[in-house]
């Protein structure tokens, strides 16, 4: 976790430096806002990862020579197939088309998206397939 933490923090620090220089020199607020957001994008997750790095025991992927105890255990469940992402994608497609042609597909699109979101969540909670 330490390296991950440092990457984020390093980028955050670099963007902070740039935003300061940019703000003082160019004094232009549009670019400064975006740079500031980028700095936060580095600093916030960076600090979070650092906070975790201190609290968790070392992971097997962070050590040069993991021991057997370190390496055992589950890393999560991975679905192999599910229809819901497709349904949600089609819903988004309909919403997008409705945004252009202003048609009734907007309602169906949202219905697709919401039902797919609920179903996918339930499915993932059950830890199983469809």
């Amino acid at each position, binding site marked *: 976790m330490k390296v991950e933490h440092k990457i984020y923090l390093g980028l955050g620090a670099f963007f902070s430096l740039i935003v300061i220089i940019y703000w003082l*020199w*160019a*004094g*232009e*607020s*549009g*670019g400064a806002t975006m740079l500031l957001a980028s700095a936060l994008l580095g600093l916030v997750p960076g600090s979070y990862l650092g906070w975790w790095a201190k609290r968790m025991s070392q992971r097997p992927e962070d050590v040069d020579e993991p021991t057997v105890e370190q390496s055992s255990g589950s890393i999560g469940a991975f679905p192999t197939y599910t229809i819901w992402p497709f349904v949600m994608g089609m819903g988004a497609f309909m919403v997008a088309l409705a945004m252009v042609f202003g048609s009734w597909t907007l309602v169906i699109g949202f219905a697709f998206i919401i039902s797919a979101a609920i179903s996918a969540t339930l499915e993932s909670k059950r830890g199983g397939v469809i």
Partner: protein
Amino acid sequence: MLNPQDPEVDGEMKQGHKKFTSLVRPRGVTSALAVATAALGLSSCTIPTFGAFKGATTQGQSTFHLFQGFALASIAVGGVTFLLLFYVMFRFRKKDESIPKQTHSNVPIEIMYTVIPIIIVVILFFFTVRVENKVVAVSPSPNQRVTVTAFQWGWKFYYPATNTTVIASGNTYPQLVLPQGETTTVTLVSKDVVHGFYIPAFNFSRYALPGFTNRFDFNPTTTGTFIGRCSQLCGLYHSEMLFSVKVISPAAFSSWTASQAGKVTA
């Protein structure tokens, strides 16, 4: 947010340039580099153009010389890179199934190929800033002023001193007349979308932006007629948004303005 209508934006920028110039010019370095530029300047007539315009304004000529410098630097850098590449490609063709030495790194070499490029870009940056300051400088007391208005799909040139307007679009192209050897400040605006006011022979282009006024100077060095174009996509007839630039002697320019005073040429 950035407010294009705010005249301060322009002023602030120029200040930025000045501050910066003083930053990069510690005295010792300046003189050494001045010698280098002088050498470059003297020999620039023998350096090929590399396909670029020589520049028909003093600003354009500075840009041209900078371009030549960049071209020489890139031939050097590119040349070394390609020589190395071709050497490696032929020298280390596979000969047998043996396993070569497993080199992971070589810190001195890595430092070298980091530091040398940094030095090169610092030098390039130094010359860039010098030329840039020349090219963007706006004289407080120009000899002439002209306001250029871009619109879909044509140009309007307005000379406030004599209240002269030249305007055309479609199949006829308007002509911008400039005096040779004098400073003309161009004020550039757009009536509708973004256009690009581009004079290839002057090595210069600038956007005509709606809601924002751009100013820049031309000091034409050669008489003649040059083509001008719209460089930024502005809609259907973008390719046909041409104009011409005619540089004439100051005397001819005075008689031209006198003859055109108060007139509108369409």
